[in-house]
C-alpha cells in the first residue's frame, strides 16, 4: 500500500529543508541542494516541488523578514510537519527494508560477471 508518496526530488527537498531547519526558504534550499549534491536546481522546479509538498501537508510555510535587499519582498520559510516527518521516516524504512532484503551475492560484481559470461 502506498501510504506516503514522495518522489526522488521531493525527498531531496524534504531532507534539505530538514537540514536547514530554521533557515529553509527558496534561495537557501536551492543553494544547499546545489552545494551538497552538485546539481543545478531551477527556481521553477524547486517552487513546484515545494507547492506539491505543501499540498500534501508534508511542509508548512510562513512569511517573515521583508528585507531591503529583496526589495521589500518577504521570505517564505518552510518547516517539516509531523506528517512530513512520518513520510520521510516511511520512505527511509522502506528503502532500508529493501536494502536488507538483497542477498549479499547479487551485488557481488564478480558473480554478476560470471553469470553474464
Amino acid at each position, binding site marked *: 500500500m502506498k501510504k506516503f508518496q514522495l518522489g526522488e526530488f521531493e525527498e531531496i527537498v524534504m531532507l534539505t529543508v530538514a537540514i536547514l531547519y530554521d533557515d529553509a*526558504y*527558496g534561495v537557501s534550499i536551492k543553494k544547499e541542494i546545489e552545494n551538497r549534491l552538485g546539481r543545478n536546481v*531551477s527556481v*521553477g522546479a524547486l517552487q513546484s516541488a515545494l507547492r506539491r509538498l505543501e499540498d500534501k501537508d508534508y511542509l508548512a510555510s510562513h512569511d517573515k523578514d521583508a528585507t531591503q535587499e529583496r526589495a521589500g519582498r518577504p521570505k*517564505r520559510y518552510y518547516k517539516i510537519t509531523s506528517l512530513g516527518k512520518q513520510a520521510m521516516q516511511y520512505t527511509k524504512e522502506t528503502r532500508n527494508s529493501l536494502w536488507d532484503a538483497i542477498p549479499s551475492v547479487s551485488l557481488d560484481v564478480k558473480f554478476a560477471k560470471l553469470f553474464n559470461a
Partner: protein
Amino acid sequence: MNSQPPKFFLRFFRWFCHPRLVKPIEGDLLELYDERVLELGKRKADLKFIKDVLLLFRKDIIKPSDGTHRINTYGMFKNHLKISFRNLIKQKGFTAINVFGLTMSMAITMLIILFIFDQDRQDEHNPNAAKIYRVLTVINDVDEDKIRSYGTSPFEINQLVPFNVESVSASAQLVKTSGLLTIDENEFQFSGLFASPNFLNFFHFDLEQGNKMSALDGENSLIISKEMSIKMFGENDPLGEIITIERLGDFIVSGVIDKRKYKTHLTYDLVIPISAFSNNAENEYLVSDWEEGAKVFYNYFHLKGESDQMLKSYLSSLDIKIPDAKKGLYRFETQRLDQINLGSLIRNEIGTTTPNFVAYFFGVLGLVLILSASFNYMNMAIARGLKRAREVGVRKVLGANRKQVIAQFLVEAQLVIFISLLCAFFLLQVLVPIFNGLKILRDIDGAITMNFNSDFYVYISFIAFAIIIGIVSGVYPALYLSSFRSLSVLKGSNGSGRSPSFLLRKVLVFFQYAFSVIFIITTIILYQQAKVFDTTDYGFEHSNIINVPKKKSIPYETFRNELLKKPQVAGVSAVSNLPVLSFFEDVEITNRSSERENIKASIFSIDAYVIENLGIEMIAGKNFSSRPQYEVDHIIINEKAMDAMGYQNPMDVLNKTVEIQSIDKNTREANTEKKKVIGVVRDFNYQFVFIESGALIMQYDPESLTTINIKIAGISPKQGAEIVESVWNEFDNNHTMDYETYQYGMEDINAEFSELVNIVGIVGFIAILIACLGQFSMVVHHVELKTKEIGIRKVLGSGLSSLMVGLSKGFIWVILVAIILATPLAVLINIAWTSRVYNAPEISVYNISLGIGIILILAVGTIYIFVSKAVRANPVDSLKYE
C-alpha cells in the same frame, strides 16, 4: 542594487503567478538576481533570470484560469446545483409536472421560432438582399374605403428610375404568367415569370445546366425548373428542346434551375425573357397605361448603398404621371428584398409569402403556452417553498445573505428549464417531420429545413429563450422564499415574513383558465365546422368518379365510346372545371326582360353527358343535345341564377335571353355574348363548403373541356383506373395516364381543414392540461397550509361537506371569474372567423356551455380529489402534523 531584472519578464511572472505565491518567489528571484549580477555580471544574470521565469511557468505555479477571486462563487454555484438536484429528486411529482408542462410548451414554441426563422431566411442567399428594393403601389380604393398595397407597379418605373435616380445600379422587371405549354402534342400546365435578361444575376440564382450569363439573352430562350424538367422530359437532357407556349410561340430550353436550393419569394416553373411580353402588341396598353400596368409589373432595383432615400423621394415625384382623375389615390413605396416575406400583407404577391400577422398569431400561441407553463412553475415553487422554509432559515443563520438564497432558487428554476429544454429539443426532432408533412404548409413552401451548422444562431436563441423563461418563472419565487426570517422559521412557525401573495397566484391561475376557456370553445366550434365538411351533401355524384385530363392525343368521342363498351363503366362526361376542386371563372349577366343587370355568376363548360353522369338534378327544360352546332348559344342555369334574374318559376326563365359579359383573361378586354336559357338545374355546391356557391351558368363548349369524368360501377377506383388505362393505351402508348379519384380530391381539401382543427385542438389540450396541473399544485399547497385547521375543525364537530366547501370556495371563485371574463372574448374571437366563412357552425349556447362544462368538470374534479383526501384524513394525524 542598481541593476534591474528584465522588466517584461518580471511583469510576465507577476501576471501568470498564483497571487498567493507571487511575493515570496519574486523575493527569491530578486535575491538570486542581485547575487548573480555581482558574481556573473548583468547580462548573464538577466539571462538566468529569464530562464528561471520561463521555468516557473508550470502547472503548480500558474494561477487558475478563472481567477482566484471567482473560486468562491464557483463553489457556491456547485453547491446550488447540487442542492437543486437533490430537491428536484426529492420532489419527483412536482418536478415531473413542471418538466412535462415546460417541455410541451417549449417544444411547440421552439417549432414556431424555427418556422419564423426559416421563413425569414427567404432570399438570404442573395448577398445584395439589403440593397435590392421592390417598388410597391399603394392604391386608395374609394369605393370600398380601403387602402391596399400591391407588389406591382407601372411598366415605365423600370425605365424612369435608373435614369433619374443616381443610387440605382441595376434593375429587373418581372411579370407573372400561367398557361398551357405543349411538347410533342403533350400538354402541361405551368406558372412562370417573364423576366429581364439579368434575372439570374440580379436574384443570385445558379443554373444546374446551361450558361448563366446568356441563358435569357435569346428572345426565344427560356429557363425551366428542375421539377418541371423531370415532369416534361423525364431523365432526358432538356437543353435545346423546343417548348410551344400557348399564344407566345416556340421557345428553346437554355437553362435548368434547381429551385430547391433557394428559399425565395419567387415561385415559377419557367422563366421567359420579358421581351416576349412587352413586345406583344396585345399587351401594349398595359405597358403604356399607368393605372392598368400598376397591377402587372414587378420592378426591382439594386441600389449602390443601403439607403433608399433617393429612390423614395424620386418615387414621390412621380405623381404627375397619374391621370388627373386618380391623382392622390396612387402612391409608390419601396420594400426591401429580404423584408418581403413576413412583411405586411401585399396584394398581387408574385409568389407565396407568409404575412407577418401569421407569424404574430403563432407567436402569441407559443407565448400563451409558455406563460402558462412558467406560471405553473411559479405556483409550485412557492407551494414547495413552505416546506423549505427551514432550509432558508438554516442558510441564513449560517451566514448566507439574501442574494445567495435568491441565487439558489434561480439556479433551481434554471435547472428545471434546462432539463425541459433538453427534453423539448428531442421532442422537436419528432415534431419537425410531422410539421413538415402538414398539408397546409404545402402551398406556402413552409417546410422547415433543419441544418445544425447554419442554424447555429437559432440554437443560441433557444438557449437565450430558456434563460429568459428561467428568470421569468424563477424570480418571483426566489424573491418570496428568500424573504423568510430565519428566527421565526427556526422557532417552528410557518416562517413567512410576509404572506405568500395569494392574490398574485390566483391571478396566474385565472390567466391559465382564461386561456383554456378560449382554446376549448374555439376547438369545439372548429370541430363542428369540420363535421359540417364531412356531412355536407354537395348535390352531385363524386364517390365513384375517376378524373382524367383530356389530352389532344386522345380523341374524346372515340375514347368515350370505347370506354362505354366496358361493362364496369357507367358513364363518361367532360367538364372545363371540376366542381369543388377547381376555381370557376366569374362573369356578369344581364337579363333585359326582367331588368336585372350585372348579376355576378360563375361559369363553366360541360358536354351533353355531365348532368346525367354527375347526377345533377334537372328541374325544368332540357339538357344539351350531343350536337354542338345547335347548342353554341344555349345555357343551363341553376336555381340561384334564376332567382337572381328575378324569376320564381323555373318554367318562366326558359327561352329567355341573357347577356354574358366576360373579361378575356389574356387581353383583359370585355366582350358580351347573348345566350338562351334552355334548362334549370337544382342548386349544387360547386365551391368548397365554406365558400358560398352562387349563381351558375353552364355552357356548351367542346373546345374548352379539360377533364374527363368516368363513372365506374361495382369495382374499386383502382381497378377502374386500370380499365381506363388499358383503353387509354390503345390511343396513346407514349404517355402514362394521370388520374385522380374525385373522392380523393375532395377528401384532400377536407384534410387541410382537419389539420387546422387538430393543431388548435392539441394546443388547447396542452393548455388545459397545464392549467389543471397548476390548479393541482395550488390545492396541494393550500391544503398543506390548513392541515392543522382541518384537524381542529373536525375535532370540534365540523361536517365533511362544510369543510370541503370552505376549502375549495376560493378556487372555484377564481375559475368562475375566469370563465365569466374569458367566455365573451372566446365568442368574439370565434365570431371573427365564422363571420367570414359560409356555412359556418353557429356559436350556440350549447357549444359554449359544452366548453365551460368540460373546464368546470376538469377543474372541480382536480380540486375535489385533493380536498376530499385532506378532509377525510384522521384528525389525530392532522393535529400531530408539524
